[in-house]
């Protein structure tokens, strides 16, 4: 296991801002922070594509924009395709160095947008795709997505019949495309996130970052706990931080404190209905998934000299 990121000390945090205040995120929004960090990593020569998501609203209504880079709002399922289109056009205009960022939520990535994302990834389009994952359709009022964790409450998975089945493993889907770079990131580790976005930007081809994005209303947490709860997600191994190179070579970036999942679950109202047995079940799954991740990280990659 490599733990090359000392996220608290790898400062300075870049000071240039590509977002302007006044945008329409909820109190304590993780998604707005992820955009802010990502843009700091990419800089001004960036074009951003935003499919339907909280960010369709956060960015500001017409005739306003709270971003200092050009953005194109696009239909829910089209982030991969739209980013491909922008990429093609920029290349044709002799601007291959301009970054193309697709910035999509979990619904737009795990569910409706999976097809166009898969298309773009299979073509290995030179784009950076960031999924800010708040684990449900938050923009429409907290309906479950395939990124919703097992047994979580949402408005379509009520506490009496919570979400069935585990959260989809999007990284596994993307690594299945053998794209050059995949990573998970967590808003609680901004410098790690920035380092990963920078790495994605330096990598030619499709790069994918799955960034955990706490949502105070959707997770039923008090807004000031946003970062704290996100941090616990990693420390409980619910959301490990790792990178995958060429779909083969796994690197765990951060050794979790290995806290019990209950520490993470009990902070959130969306899990308040869980019984001890439920929590034990989730713990088992988390432990199992972690074991798989550990094993993968110890595998030799297919191409030895990549």
């Amino acid at each position, binding site marked *: 296991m490599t733990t090359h990121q000392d996220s608290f000390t790898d400062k300075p945090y870049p000071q240039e801002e590509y977002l302007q205040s006044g945008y*329409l995120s909820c*109190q304590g929004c993780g998604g707005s922070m992820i955009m802010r960090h990502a843009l700091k990593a990419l800089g001004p020569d960036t074009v951003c594509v935003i499919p339907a998501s909280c960010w369709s609203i956060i960015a500001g209504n017409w*005739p306003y924009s709270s971003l200092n880079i050009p953005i194109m709002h696009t239909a829910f399922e089209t982030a991969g395709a739209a980013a491909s289109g922008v990429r093609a056009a920029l290349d044709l205009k002799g601007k291959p160095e301009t970054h193309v960022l697709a910035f999509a939520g979990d619904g737009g990535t795990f569910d409706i947008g999976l097809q166009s994302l898969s298309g773009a990834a299979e073509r290995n389009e030179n784009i950076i795709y960031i999924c800010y994952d708040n684990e449900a359709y938050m923009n429409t009022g907290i309906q479950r997505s395939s990124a919703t964790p097992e047994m979580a409450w949402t408005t379509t998975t009520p506490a009496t019949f919570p979400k069935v089945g585990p959260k989809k493993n999007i990284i596994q889907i993307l690594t299945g495309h053998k794209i050059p770079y995949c990573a998970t990131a967590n808003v609680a580790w901004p410098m790690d996130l920035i380092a990963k976005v920078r790495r994605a930007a330096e990598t030619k081809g499709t790069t994918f970052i799955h960034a955990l994005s706490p949502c105070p209303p959707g997770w039923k947490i008090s807004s*000031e706990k946003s970062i704290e709860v996100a941090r616990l997600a990693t420390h409980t191994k619910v959301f490990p931080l790792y990178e995958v190179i060429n779909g083969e070579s796994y690197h765990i970036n951060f050794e979790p404190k290995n806290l019990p999942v209950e520490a993470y679950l009990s902070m959130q109202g969306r899990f308040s209905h869980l019984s001890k047995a439920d929590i034990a079940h989730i713990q088992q799954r988390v432990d199992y998934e972690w074991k798989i991740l550990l094993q993968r990280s110890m595998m030799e990659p297919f191409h030895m000299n990549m």
Partner: protein
Amino acid sequence: MSDEKPITYHNLGEMPEYVISEASMLWNKTGTWRYLAPRYLTQTPPCNQQCPAGNDVEGFIRLMEKGAIAEAAQLIREENPFPAVCGRVCYHPCETGCNRTQFDDPVAIHSLERVAAEQPFPATPPETGRPDSGKTVAIIGSGPSGLTAAYHLARMGHQPTVYEALDEPGGLLRYGIPAYRLPRNILKAEVDHITSCGVKIICGKRAGVDISWSDLNKSDAVFITVGVHRNRRLEIPAENTAGILPGLGFLESVAGGTPPRLGQHVIVIGGGNTAIDSARCALRLGSDVSIYYHRSRDEMPAFEEEVNEALKEGVKIHFLTQPVQFLTDNQHLAGIQLRETRLGSPDESGRRRPEPVPGSEFDIPVNTIITAIGETADLDWLPPEISHENNRITINLFGQTSLEKVFAGGDAALTEHNVTTAIGSGKLAACAIDAFLHNQDFTGIMPRITIGETGAVSVSRYLNHGDAHKKQGGPGKVVSFEDLNLAYFRKSARQKITTLDFNNRSSSFEEVNNGLSGEVTVIEAKRCFHCGVCTDCDNCYMFCPDIAILKKGPGEEGYRINMDYCKGCGICVNECPRAAMIMEKEQ
């Protein structure tokens, strides 16, 4: 288009043809969404509140962390002229209070202080901005309390004169603490520095004997810090036999270079610092030493570290044993009869009272016995207007005696007897005397300058000079361990100090503790949590989801909150590692 106002299209002609943005969202002041507002608030670190001398502990560590050692020393001297002394002999309650204790190990504060004190003395004491007042203050006793008061009063523009009964200044520092704990050159340097700051010390003048009260009373104010020099008696048979030495007297003679001849085996009676110091001195003079103490280890008033060192050096300590009588043989000390005790119900000190075990008496033959069961003050010379009780001068909260212009401090006026407390009382008296000399009501001033809820006072805050108001947190809340966000701290071992080899101890008064040095100092300083004090760590700035926290301009430290856009989510406060921010209702 303006960013300050929303755009309203009144007619089609004004409207753009396409859904393409025309302006920013800056007009949208999301600050109106807020219920509570964050605020930067320097809160009191527990170390600061715990320091009886009122040192800005967190402040000097912050400077040392950046390698600014000289600045750190100067910061300490704003409150305390004795960093080298305190860095050695203080029992460091700051470390006991250190929140790091609950995380791994406390920061080695006193070692850091000692490193700071190794810096050359500055040409001038820390600036106060005070002009000469022309007022005189007589200070009786040149111990830590008296010299501290003199130092601050001099800084404040007054003319203090210190009268010392013994031959050299320093009081207990010189005559009570052995050189292996506090080398004489170290003490001398700090005392010399105090005199260089405008303090006049007259030695060999015992109040009431060599100088009359009426002469002393001619000064504009008087500060009495005569200390405690009378050995408390056991009040058991044969106590006046030769060979029975009073602890403090023994230490004074060792300090004065004329140690008495001791027997091969020495018994020390008592469990306080004087007992331990006496035992370790006797050891260094070549004797085997046993201490007999009538309670258990837990009740021992001596500093734990000192006890440990004594044990390591070979001193034997026997607990739950009390003297019954001294045994004599032809007017000469032949031994001591002791008996066992057991602990009963607590006494007025809160400690469990030792009760004799009937029939447990036993005798030990010995030629030298040192009794160190406490000291009392000599107050017989005081004028009757100055009241005292239980052998302590009666003072109010800020050291004033029953005479308005007369203040008292140090061991003669306090229940707690240690160097750092004495320094704190000298500082408090300096402030109170200064207020008195300026006809100001100190009662109103006291809360403003008290560190934390119950700590010592801060001279810096009293003087309110320069950026002193920023120092030492605000009055009130002390940051607790629970207030910290531990996610941002990593465990790290406390740096170990080096000590003198044991083989060299039995024959030498060389300093035992060698302190920290070099890079290790900075590593240790970096362990500080900086409880309650912003260190510009950027967490608030980085985690603000609304870019409402902005870095201040070039050259300025800290952050500014743009309340126009702060939605009041509270993340900045929650993610502040050190509780230097609070959420509150807006005024």
